[in-house]
């Protein structure tokens, strides 16, 4: 597909913009569904393959958690610099994005709360260190205790309370920063599917 010639462009010019069209270069990869397709569901096939990877998820989650602990240790040791802030954010952000897939939704929720703190606190040096540490420790505890059914409700409650405390803090320190306040209070607009 990729070595095709670029199809001819058609450009229409307006007062403030151009509209550029060309024949759909990916049109050739669409084919009529045939009888053999009725029993073949590519999404189901992919979900099955993803389930096949699930044996590795615990190990991956532990690696992500170690990375977060290491990033937090660097913050404790050196304070918030551009570098330590960035690494702590990246580690938390990766857990936010990956942990649900790995089977740790409460870790993802707690990591999201930590990301919001890092992103929206006007001065990270003034954020109570305990608040950040509690998030990191909670993620570690959730990951370690994930297989114990009786801890799931505790994890959920822990995550919910941390988010509440973090949100109250962010709302207070951003009361004069309407753009941040709006971002903090706004729900996600991206559909999951």
């Amino acid at each position, binding site marked *: 597909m990729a*070595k095709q010639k670029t199809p001819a462009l058609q450009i229409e010019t307006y007062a403030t913009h151009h509209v550029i069209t060309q024949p759909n270069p990916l049109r050739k990869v669409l084919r009529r569904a045939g009888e053999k397709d009725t029993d073949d569901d590519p999404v189901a096939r992919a979900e099955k393959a993803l389930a096949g990877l699930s044996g590795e998820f615990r190990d991956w989650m532990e690696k992500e958690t170690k990375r977060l602990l290491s990033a937090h240790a660097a913050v404790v040791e050196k304070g918030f610099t551009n570098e330590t802030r960035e690494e702590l954010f990246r580690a938390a952000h990766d857990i*936010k994005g990956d942990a649900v897939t790995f089977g740790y939704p409460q870790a993802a929720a707690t990591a999201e709360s930590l990301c919001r703190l890092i992103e929206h606190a006007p001065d990270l040096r003034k954020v109570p260190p305990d608040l950040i540490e509690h998030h990191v420790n909670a993620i570690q505890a959730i990951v370690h205790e994930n297989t114990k059914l009786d801890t799931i409700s505790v994890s959920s409650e822990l995550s919910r309370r941390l988010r509440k405390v973090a949100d109250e803090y962010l709302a207070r320190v951003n009361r004069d920063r309407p753009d941040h306040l709006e971002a903090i209070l706004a729900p996600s607009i991206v559909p999951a599917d």
Partner: protein
Amino acid sequence: MVNAGIPLDPGVMYRIDFNKLRFLVCDDNPHMRRILRTLLHSFGAREVYEAEDGATALEMYSHYVPDIVITDWAMPIFDGLELAQMIRQPESKGNPFAPIIMLTGHTEKRRVTVARDAGVTEFLAKPISAKGLYQRILNVVANPRPFIKTKTYFGPDRRRNTNNAYMGPERRVGEKAEVLQQPSLLDKARSAI
């Protein structure tokens, strides 16, 4: 880009031949790259190239000329947003029209708007799902949008819905019809899944 070439039959269901598509996946997290690779191969893709940062991805983009780019946002060196901006250079020697799917843990409205303004074609929020990824790919293959070039923007039409009654300050002006009509193929293709 509009389906101005061979028209698709409106009464027919379509499937994607993934083995004819070349993908470039850019994510600094090795676990997420593994998941993406697994999903794409399960869909039937054979050519999946991987980069762990924006700079490497840009090099690979020029070298392998992928049909579709799937990129994370937060990455070292330069991020997914900058990658999209560099690909969407109308005067560049490379292909500035390739669909870009941004797969990210960022789900705030402001972020989605920024990604859209950088020329991102589709936005997919983590946690990733086989269904969500398939639908985004289907969308860029079966339902491409025309490109718009203004003084400050080059990329897919940011308006997915036409509102002729809109008279706000950002209304495009011109004497001709302002949005080209394109056949809607997505629903038919979706029904083939």
